[in-house]
């Protein structure tokens, strides 16, 4: 769906994107992680035709971006980090304006507004001025505007900044619901738990380069980590917890997995013996980390971004 090859972007002498190569498949929720100044926003800007690049190739829907910008834009939407709408207009006036400006036929627009309103649960506040909405409601309106052209690709630039946990969860659920509607989502965020919760694939970008990319599962498999994941056949949490109390370095992740701190053979042998004694059948042992955050920190701490 989106294919980026050898992309170079310079701001004067500073390199923002350093021969970056990336592929985003259709229908995925793709997380773009990186510290401030890593190049995430530059990449999103390039993909939306807001920023020109110096070298490389970008194709979206198999179309070269530069030659098909208008056609590509009609099938994409950007939901910026800022609340990019009119505070003095009501919710429905904002939706009508941003829909009308895109020359969407009236019938289609009506249908799309209905979808945007329902998806973002804005139905009860259509005639409310945007300035009177809560922080979470404003964020939802910001997303709803992005749905007015029924896009195939949605770019989210940190859409949950500054809102309460409940609203954040609502928004994440909304974004996850796009998957069933066959939409591709490119999602940037500083909140690692969000990425873990909603993304199928993740790329970690630092100093303008992709330093790791893959499915969330593969990202969390880290051979250099000092931890192992022991996968077991499903059993009760109580039984697993009771077993783990007998070995300090063993902790429960969920009903089918345990985390073992350390990968030395005697530690592994001890854990396996314990599980056998407790009648817990082991399915698999793999290298792993507990969170994306620890992986992110270990990867990005190797080099600091300049841009």
């Amino acid at each position: 769906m989106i294919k980026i090859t050898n992309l170079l972007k310079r701001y004067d002498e500073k390199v923002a994107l350093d021969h970056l190569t990336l592929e985003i498949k259709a229908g995925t929720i793709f997380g773009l992680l990186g510290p401030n100044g890593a190049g995430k926003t530059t990449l999103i800007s390039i993909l939306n035709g807001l920023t020109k690049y110096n070298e490389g190739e970008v194709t979206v829907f198999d179309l070269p971006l530069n030659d098909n910008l208008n056609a590509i834009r009609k099938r994409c939407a950007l939901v910026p980090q800022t609340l990019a709408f009119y505070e003095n207009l009501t919710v429905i006036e904002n939706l009508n304006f941003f829909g009308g400006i895109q020359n969407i036929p009236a019938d289609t627009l009506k249908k799309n507004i209905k979808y945007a309103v329902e998806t973002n649960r804005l139905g009860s506040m259509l005639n409310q001025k945007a300035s009177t909405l809560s922080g979470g409601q404003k964020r939802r309106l910001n997303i709803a505007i992005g749905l007015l052209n029924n896009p195939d690709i949605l770019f989210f630039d940190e859409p949950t900044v500054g809102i309460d946990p409940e609203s954040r969860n609502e928004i994440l659920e909304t974004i996850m619901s796009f998957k069933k509607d066959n939409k591709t989502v490119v999602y940037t965020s500083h909140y690692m738990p969000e990425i873990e919760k909603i993304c199928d694939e993740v790329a970690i970008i630092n100093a303008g380069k992709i330093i790791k990319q893959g499915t969330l599962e593969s990202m969390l498999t880290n051979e250099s980590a000092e931890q192992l994941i022991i996968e077991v056949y499903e059993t009760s949490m109580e039984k697993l917890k009771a077993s783990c109390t007998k070995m300090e370095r063993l902790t429960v992740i969920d009903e089918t997995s345990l985390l073992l701190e350390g990968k030395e053979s005697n530690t592994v042998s001890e854990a396996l013996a314990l599980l056998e004694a407790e009648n817990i059948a082991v399915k698999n042992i793999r290298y792993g980390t507990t969170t994306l955050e620890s992986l992110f920190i270990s990867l990005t701490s190797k080099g600091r971004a300049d841009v």
Partner: protein
Amino acid sequence: MFKAMLIKEFLLVSRDKHALAALFVMPAVFILIMSLALKDVFNEDKALIEYAVIDKDHSLESYSLLSKFRANKMMTEHNVSDDFGKPKEEGVQFIVVIPEGFKSQFSQNEANNSALQIEVASDIGQSHLMLFKTQVLSSVMQVRLDAINLAAEMQSSMRGEKSEAKKIEFDEKSMMKIHYAALEEDEKPTSTQQSVPSWIVFGLFFVIIPMSTIFISERKQNTLMRLSTMNVSLPILFGGKIIPYMLINQLQVWVMIAVGMFVVPLFGAAALTIGGDISALIAVSLALSLSAIGLSILIAVTVDSVEQATTIGGIINILLGAIGGVMVPKFVMPEFMRDFANVSPMSWGLEGFLDVFLRRGTLDDVMYEVVGLVLFGLVSLIIAAGIFNYKIRRVA
């Protein structure tokens, strides 16, 4: 697309109380105040001079002079005592003392040392003093002519002849007829006709405030960026500003004209009349609107905050108004200032409107101003587009 932009701008402006006040209330109030304040300046029947007379001569001639003064509609007499103070203290602008022996002025055989003594309030300007002096001289001249006519009549009578010689008249109406250029005979310009054009011009340029405020908010909130991702190009973006604000400006023009026609007369000043072509009026107002909108967009893309826009926009408006003859009429300016006034587009718009309201102008008469205003607007828009693109490229 334009319909959506039109509706959006109208809704935003209609909900901005400050913008509505600046666009409609402020110029309407100015029209009302200035029409009433200047009402008497354009009314020759209205007293402009407050004076008092101390007659120490008590002669036929001094009484005759007093009666001439009293017959002059431009002057209002007040009474003061013989030990009068300064004119200001007596509540008048001038005190005329007719000295003892004043009548000797009218006799060729007697020495003339009986000039009128005129006390002038210290805040009286030279033009006002000149006006009063002219009125006094005119009255004295009439008294003298009356004396000459009377003497001639008496001589004829003594000779037993019937006087056939025609009296020498010194009457303004018989000596001159006043005709204002392009107006009907006996028609006079009114303060409303002078005031309405000025404050329409001033009011139109106040679109700077709402337009730049909305534009800067759009830029700061990344709404413009969002619109770019929706394939809204720069010409469409500017067009989406120009068309709604042009309509708002036209609404302003007709609201101000309605105030001049229907509200101002309620307060005692003359009603506005449109002497010239309506097509000329529409052409001037559209051209002026384009020039005001061009300048507004230029300011909006140049400054970085709403505070800067309102401050700089307000200052530019007032300066252009002051230079362009909106605040101080050009006819009272010295010549170099009158020439300098031509640098202000408000001056071109004002001249165009005065052509229509005051000089019965046609489309041809206002074409010079219309072309100038359109060019000013287009050049402003081109510069604004350049600055806007430069700023976007710098960010990108």
